[in-house]
């Protein structure tokens, strides 16, 4: 991205402010899945969210889609807080925010024809007549580069990559402003993944869609996303609105993630350095920095005081006591 493009930041589509999500568990305890998360997504751009399993990335987007209610916080979309929307209003919101799921096998009703799968969202919103179904399905299939004949098939007769395109086509049917891709390419082979990502980028350019792209492949996130947020234990620990993660990441956790990536062009003798241990239980969050138990630089202050996200350079926020 050239410098000129960076300065012309498109308008904010979704502003997530201090979203917290706690789940009640047995014994009156609470599991904190998202802890005071604030992020912004821009029109026609991709916000990548990375982190290990259990870091709350899926919970965050599910909260935004009102699959479960937020404990506190707000998400401003088109001037309104969508987390407070109820009934018909929240149903209407879903028309504008759609989702592509990780497992393309489990995402569809196996007994429905492809054309019915693709147009079901339109039917739900009364936006399509019966006689238009075939034409619309064919149009959607074409959009995701699948042959129009597929409309009379069942999803089981399609390959994984084709099914994932189907998921994208279904998400597109309502012409949403935002599409959430929750590990949408994790189940695919690299060559198929590349094609699906190309497709996503092309559609983004054509329609100005914003993606929330959840993924744990750092390489892919780096290539797909305009902005990147790194989450750990429900917290955003680093947020880059511009620049590449490889060159600019500063948080010890982001750097540790970088070191665990398998590159194809390994030099002999080069070693990966994975983080030791596992993500702590979100049931009893530590006082202080969430990353303290696995951080090499952990010191006294990290155990006492939780670092807040600070802007360490323009459009780059880091939550660490040691990154100035």
């Amino acid at each position, binding site marked *: 991205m050239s410098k000129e493009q960076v300065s012309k930041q498109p308008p904010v589509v979704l502003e997530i402010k201090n979203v917290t999500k706690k789940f009640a568990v047995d014994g009156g305890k609470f599991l904190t899945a998202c802890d005071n998360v604030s992020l912004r997504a821009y029109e026609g751009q991709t916000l990548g969210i990375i982190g290990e399993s259990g870091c709350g990335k899926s919970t965050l987007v599910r909260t935004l889609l009102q699959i479960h209610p937020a404990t506190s916080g707000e998400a401003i979309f088109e001037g309104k807080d969508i987390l407070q929307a109820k009934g018909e209003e929240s149903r209407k919101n879903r028309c504008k925010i759609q989702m592509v799921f990780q497992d393309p096998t489990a995402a569809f009703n196996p007994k429905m024809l492809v054309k019915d799968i693709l147009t079901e969202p339109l039917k739900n919103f009364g936006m399509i007549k019966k006689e238009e179904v075939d034409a619309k399905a064919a149009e959607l299939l074409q959009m995701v580069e699948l042959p129009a004949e597929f409309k009379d098939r069942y999803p089981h007769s399609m390959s994984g990559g084709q099914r994932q395109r189907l998921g994208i086509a279904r998400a597109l049917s309502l012409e949403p402003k935002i599409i959430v891709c929750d590990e949408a390419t994790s189940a695919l082979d690299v060559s198929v993944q590349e094609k699906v990502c190309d497709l996503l980028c092309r559609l983004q350019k054509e329609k100005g869609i914003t993606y929330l792209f959840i993924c744990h492949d750092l390489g892919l996130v780096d290539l*797909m996303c305009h902005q990147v947020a790194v989450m750990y234990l429900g917290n955003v620990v680093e947020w880059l609105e511009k620049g590449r993660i490889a060159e600019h990441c500063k948080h010890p956790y982001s750097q540790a993630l970088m070191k665990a990536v398998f590159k194809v062009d390994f030099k002999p003798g080069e070693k990966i350095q994975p983080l030791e241990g596992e993500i702590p239980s979100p049931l009893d969050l530590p006082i202080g920095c969430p990353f303290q138990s696995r951080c090499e630089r952990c010191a006294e202050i990290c155990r006492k005081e939780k670092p807040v996200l600070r802007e360490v350079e323009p459009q780059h926020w880091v939550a660490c006591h040691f990154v100035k």
Partner: protein
Amino acid sequence: MLLEVKNLDISYGDKLTVANANLELDKGEILSIVGESGSGKTTIIRAIMGCLPGAGRVSAGSIIFDGKDVLKNTPQQWRDMSGKEMSMIFQDSGNMINPIRRIGVQFIDYIQTHSPATSKEEAYEMATKMLANVHLPNPDNIMNSYPFELSGGMRQRVGIAMAMTFSPKILLADEPTSALDVTTQAQIIRQIVDVRNEYHAAVIIVTHNLGVASYMSNKIMVMKGGKVAESGTREEVIGNPQHEYTKQLLRAVPVIGGKRYYE
């Protein structure tokens, strides 16, 4: 040569799934089989292990393991061999372990099945030692856990510990890290490399992560549509790919700092 597979054809019913596969592996070597889903990667290692499902069978060729043609094995010979001379870890070891029995009970069962002379106490001792060996914290606690109480990475370690109990000569790993995230994947891969160094076993790993293949292997075999597209040493395949499909695969791997899709 520890393992020699020659002109192997594998069919499911009448359908030829793998055609004319050849591979050679020596002690202490790691071979990665890469390729897209459905290309027959798993089928090959299942044939080596003698556990092709359903109508699957080897229709031609030979598998010579440690000087013996394993295709002539009787069921009893297979039983004696698996676990002791060759063993396997799966994509999610959680699916291999019985979900309603504690890890410990099953681990002891496993040890006693393969080595009936071992007492329960000895077996327990062996199991905890193996669990500690793969860097699982608090092995006694793990022995007392149900599979669902462990994370994916921990279950995978339990799988590795079980597989290595009898120091097999070859370890077959079927996409052992596909279900894990980056840090856990790195931990497990390092664990498998450690296991190779410690036991001097040969390893065949099926993966679709070319980074993993490039990192750990001595040899790489690329498969497409049931045929071997290319095979050779790591340096040959990664550094100087010959087959168009290998080049295409290598290009498709997202590289940090590479050209962005939207540019």
